[in-house]
């Protein structure tokens, strides 16, 4: 048993933290206010190799591990939830499925530019009538000669407006029992019939691009099918298991930032002639926050470690996501409380932490769905 990060992991933490503090942090308030996706920051994230952390060098990646990836998400999440979400979605949802399930050619053609940071990816699962119940997918892909013709609509897709490829899930047929077979297909976003619009006015993660995709007779070659045609559903469940680790890491980042801000403020703010940190009511809040952040991070690291070891991690990644994102929300809420009226103001940033944290309890499986996943693991 060893709770220490290794040298590379420490170096990655320092590098990403320096980059996040120096480059992203000064922009965070503006990114939120203007709800503009910071393209130039993503170019730099790409150049630093961060979009390829967990992928092997042969596909343009850095050949590092899931723990390092979680560390990177946390460090970015500490300063900007929007950037953190787009970063996590690009790696976990846009690129990872191609790495897990793609053919050699698909990895060369589609994964390499994503891992090298030259392009962003997206993953289109959610539809207006299929959110938590992804099995309810209505989008269809029908074989026509050597091609698929895809029709349907996807909503709330992170990064889609800036992505070169979107992996979309679609019904490709029925199995023996008459149930829909759902497959995943790589769709280049410049294909005819693909319309991507991002008009959502969001509560939080406002600088992260979220888009609607309409697929109208979109023709892509049959080779763009990702992985096993029969196992699309299982595949995206696996993809989401991995993605949950990164959303959990983002939660740890926001929770840690909330604690840091609250601690700093509590030591400086004087009321009744004393620093408010001398009041036990404030101390107890800080103690709870610190404890929960640490527990959440440990769970994230454990889930990441299990994944790196090739061991099952479905239950643990659900624990991590559920606990870390609810911790993020609680911590951000307490950080506002400790800041009093100032915390309610945008300038102090903690109110943004709360708005950003809320998304984490919804995206990549709501908190209720995490509990379902855990219960299923217990009962099966």
């Amino acid at each position, binding site marked *: 048993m060893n709770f220490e990060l290794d040298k590379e992991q420490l*170096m990655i933490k320092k590098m990403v933290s320096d980059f996040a503090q120096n480059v992203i942090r000064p922009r965070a308030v503006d990114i939120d206010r203007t709800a503009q996706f910071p393209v130039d920051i993503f170019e730099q994230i790409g150049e630093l190799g961060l979009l390829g952390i967990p992928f092997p*060098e042969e596909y343009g990646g850095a050949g590092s591990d899931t723990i390092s990836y979680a560390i990177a998400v946390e460090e970015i999440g500490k300063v900007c939830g929007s950037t953190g979400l787009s970063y996590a979605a690009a790696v976990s949802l846009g690129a990872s499925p191609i790495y897990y399930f793609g053919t050699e050619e698909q990895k060369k053609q589609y994964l390499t530019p994503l891992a090298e940071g030259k392009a962003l990816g997206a993953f289109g699962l959610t539809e207006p009538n299929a959110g938590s119940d992804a099995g309810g997918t209505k989008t269809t892909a029908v074989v026509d000669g050597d091609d698929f013709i895809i029709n349907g609509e996807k909503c709330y897709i992170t990064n889609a407006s800036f992505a070169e490829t979107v992996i979309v899930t679609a019904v490709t047929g029925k199995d023996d029992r008459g149930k829909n077979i759902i497959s995943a297909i790589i769709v280049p976003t410049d294909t005819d019939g693909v319309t991507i619009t991002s008009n959502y006015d969001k509560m939080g993660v406002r600088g992260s691009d979220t888009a609607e995709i309409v697929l109208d007779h979109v023709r892509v070659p049959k080779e763009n099918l990702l992985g096993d045609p029969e196992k699309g559903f299982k595949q995206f469940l696996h993809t989401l298991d991995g993605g949950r680790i990164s959303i959990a890491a983002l939660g740890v980042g926001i929770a840690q930032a909330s604690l840091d801000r609250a601690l700093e403020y509590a030591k400086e703010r004087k009321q009744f002639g004393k620093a408010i940190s001398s009041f036990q009511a404030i101390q107890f809040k800080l103690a709870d926050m610190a404890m929960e952040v640490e527990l959440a991070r440990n769970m994230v690291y454990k889930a990441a470690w299990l994944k790196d070891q090739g061991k099952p991690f479905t239950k643990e990644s659900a624990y991590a996501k559920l606990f870390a994102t609810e911790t993020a929300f609680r911590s951000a809420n307490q950080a506002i409380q400790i800041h009093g009226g100032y915390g309610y103001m945008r300038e102090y940033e903690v109110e943004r932490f709360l708005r950003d944290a809320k998304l984490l309890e919804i995206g990549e499986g709501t908190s209720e769905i995490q509990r379902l996943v855990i219960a299923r693991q217990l009962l099966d």
Partner: protein
Amino acid sequence: MNIYVLLKKTFDTEEKITISNGIIEEDGAEFIINPYDEYAVEEAIKQRDEHGGDVTVVTIGDEDSEKQLRTALAMGADKAVLINTEDDLEEGDQYTTTAILEAFFADKAYDLILAGNVAIDEASGQVGPRLAERLDIACVTTITNMEIDGDIVKIDKDVEGDVEKVETSLPLLVTCQQGLNDPRYPSLPGIMKAKKKPLEELEIDDLDLDEDDVEPKTKTIEIFLPPEKEAGRMIEGEPAEQVKELVGLLKNEAKVL
């Protein structure tokens, strides 16, 4: 071109520093590459990319200094040398450091050696110039720009905010000043590749030195923190009264007049 960088780790002076029993508490302190040495690493990498050759970073330190060397390798340096004095030396000063480096460079071919202007912990600024003197090569301190053309080196040197233009030739030792460049972040692939780059570990024994050869020439009598800054005092009243009170305070209380 054979390029060497002298680098050391320092505690982060932005972080809280605690002293107990006359020594700086190292437990829990954050260690970083001396910021001026980061300029040196960046410049070395740039010059290598332009003129070809190899960048070797050299540090005198302990086991933990490997972290800073690996960071320099991750930024793009090619090789690293750790001269580990942990088991051999109780204490050292700038003389010690220079003597060890002189021995290290005795059998090396070097065109350019870069060091930081000062280390932010002890801030002596001596190691670079003293080593150049021992190696009998040219030395320019506090540089803010450097162009190499063949053997000729054109340098901008910071002199208390003004610029002095210097022309010199290789082999050369320079010390790097803020403003020389913007040190890059080590990239992810850089960090992973650094794992496989050569990192040689030496002890003073390997340089045919023993403890007596490098015995410090100075003695540190005491280490203490600057006094806590006290709250400022507002002087009130009419301007004439204020001046009178201020002068009085400077004379009688601060005793600077």
